[in-house]
């Protein structure tokens, strides 16, 4: 093995490690804002992904996630909350509210219709 091969091999292994960390490593969460009506509300911008993509809410209180899709990429034209049986169309430029009350604690993934763009809803026990 010459120097170039060693460099490429080492670099490749490091790159694979980076890819795994980049996609599956730990992420920071955003807490939901409380409205006057006691609803936990977060606005989620949809462009290439969800911003924020990790949202913290409290169990047993109504949640309103207002999705605002600002891109035309068809991948994100639907958002799916499989655990709560919700699938909503997100027309470009419109604000679409997804409303439900999480009745159980845990981490629930929400995603586009193909499950390539993902976010997580972290429900803390009340």
């Amino acid at each position: 093995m010459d120097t170039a091969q060693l460099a490429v091999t080492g670099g490749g292994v490091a790159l694979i490690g980076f890819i795994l960390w980049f996609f599956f490593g730990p992420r920071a969460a955003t807490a939901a804002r409380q409205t006057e009506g006691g609803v936990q509300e977060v606005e989620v911008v949809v462009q290439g992904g969800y911003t924020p993509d990790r949202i913290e809410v409290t169990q047993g209180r109504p949640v309103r996630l207002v999705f605002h899709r600002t891109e035309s990429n068809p991948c994100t034209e639907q958002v799916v909350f499989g655990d709560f049986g919700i699938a909503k169309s997100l027309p470009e430029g419109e604000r679409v509210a997804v409303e439900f009350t999480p009745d159980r604690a845990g981490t629930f993934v929400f995603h586009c219709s193909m499950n390539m763009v993902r976010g997580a809803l972290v429900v803390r026990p009340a």
Partner: protein
Amino acid sequence: MSTTTAETSSRVDMPVVGMHCAACAVRIEGALGQAPGVSKAAVNFATGRATVEYDPASTAPADLRDVVRGAGYDAVVPPDGHHAGGVSDAEERAREAEYKRTRLKFVVAAVLTVPVAVIGMGGHIIPSLGPLLNFPGRAWVELALATPVLFWAGWEFFTGAWAAARHRAADMNTLVAIGTLSAFAYSVVATLVPDWFTVSASSDHAGHGGSAPVGVYYEVAAVIVTLILLGRLLEARARSRTGGAIRALIGLSPKTARVERDGVEVDVPVSEVRVGDVVRVRPGEKVPVDGTVLDGKSAVDESMLTGEPLPVTKAPGDSVIGATVNTTGSFRLTATKVGADTVLQQIVRLVQEAQGSKAPIQKLADTVSGYFVPAVLCLAVLTFVVWFNLTPPESRLTFALLTFVSVLIIACPCALGLATPTAVMVGTGRGAQAGILIKGGEPLESAGRLTTVVLDKTGTVTEGKPAVTEIVPAGLSEADLLRLAAAAEGQSEHPLARAVIAAAQSRGLVAPQTTAFEAVPGHGLVATVEGRQVLVGNARLLTSRNVAFDAAAVGRTAAAGRTTLLVAVDGAFAGLLAVADPVKPTSKAAVERLHAMGLEVVLLTGDNRGTAETVAREVGIDQVLADVLPDGKAAEVKKLRDAGKVVAMVGDGINDAPALAAADIGIAMGTGTDVAIEAADITLVKGDLSGVASSIELSRATMRTIRQNLFFAFAYNVLGIPVAAGVLYPLTGWLLSPILASAAMALSSVSVVTNALRLGRLELRRGN
């Protein structure tokens, strides 16, 4: 379209006319934002729409339109209750604009890519062209042509990949961007500082630099971008066709109605029709709203909503559905449902929700998609490393690079993602066209696995409208018998009473006044008519009053599957009326179809065994569950399920709601006027049993398509990625070029969508 978003705020989404720049949008937004009662206004130049949140107490969409007009533009106030249509229109326009943008990019990319491809590959294909194409500065010409292809036509891949990367996510764009950028960057370095690669260029048989000192791969990057843009174009066209059925439904909405206002008939927009309005429908016109015929008579073509091929005759008192087409007669109707409550709008909503739902079979594909792109990235890196180590030094860099790019480009997560939703969309859309409303992916999947179909008798197998089929007088004339019975029954609400009254009316008999009336639950009734005591009821009623009757005649009608009403006048037996609920003309053929599909068919009824078995014999059903009380039906369905059967329960959706809910699949036979039946997984807009067979056929066909699509998508990726990585090279010397990889990838998702579209042409027999 306006929706109430909270207690005090409403929202309207209005198309704005006359905008020609983003500054116009800003100006309109400013004007709307300052209007009284407006809490939020957003104007989107791309979609040409204004979205305004406002206080309905202080302003209205029409006022908002005036504000837009004041700013020098115009806006269209969408009619109330056309929510579904409105959103769909906006989406449609946005998609069309997007399609046109992509088409322009593809055309420009293709025009620039052809010369790059000829220069880059021409010498390989036709060796005599080699010297001609190896002109000095050739690499620079390729660079000049390929740059706009990548960074103008293909710019969306990079912005998309970057936007995803910022969220630590990845999609198709990531793969295309990294693949093309790698080939391009390598080529640029080889063009600018060829010395770096002199070793590898000296004997590089794979490269094709010619007079350029080292091989460059501009054509790889340019062709990939062009082909993938072409794939997107084809896919967008095919995908827009998957929603064709729902658009056709929305397009059925009538625009105007001829309404009587202050005694004068005036044409008004359909959104202004109110419940209770009297509407005139002339020959050839669409029925504007749901209603009840007031006067006049005509045949109405309901095929677009119910799938029934023959026009249905409508007389006063009959209900008509908005969006169906009047044929030759003319009639007036009283509006009963308008706006979002009409059958058409309910169907549109139901189908839209169904098309957005997921089938459980998709779960595996979803799980795979979630890890797909990162896994492909890792595999591509691994491919690079392996080939770099295994190939001789002079060609290792190009070899590693080309296989790396091929792996990235051939991988197609889109085929996996599109496999199920497109089939669900086309399948449910096809159903809606035939009057079969399937609530979503999950019911589709269960309906495809059915083993047993349980049919409720009344209203499902039979018409549900009992009629007097036989009159046997004893001591009275037939007319007198019927006249007195009808008079007595006139006070009753029992369904059998309606049959007796209808029989009297059809013979032109006028029933006399009843002066006293008493219902005897489980037996019948006692009434006083023209001073005579009339008993109408079953054998128990007459026996309890010590009236002797012709038991043989009663036995005969019961054996024929009829319900027998015995009549006694002033304590003497006066005759009997046989009432039967006729079997629907389509039931027998439909049961045959269900049997031919390998399904077990069970008749479930609260009627006595004799009646039930007669009906079962008539239509060819071999299993009968009779004498089941209404609340016992769900338990019977559960028993069948506990025996390991996958059960569909077919009923009217109201009385049978618990049984429908207890089954794996509840199929509700609609009456044509109320389609939003909550307990049902499948609703037949207008019920006959052939629709049950068709809905199961459609579900099976859809599931077959989904399985084909998933198999194709998995097989494509599982086979394509290793081939692209060069696993066949040591065995066969065969290596997939990145250009072929991009062609395969572009075609794979198109194939999946095209396969789903075949469902739209499925023949669904109705009304035979």
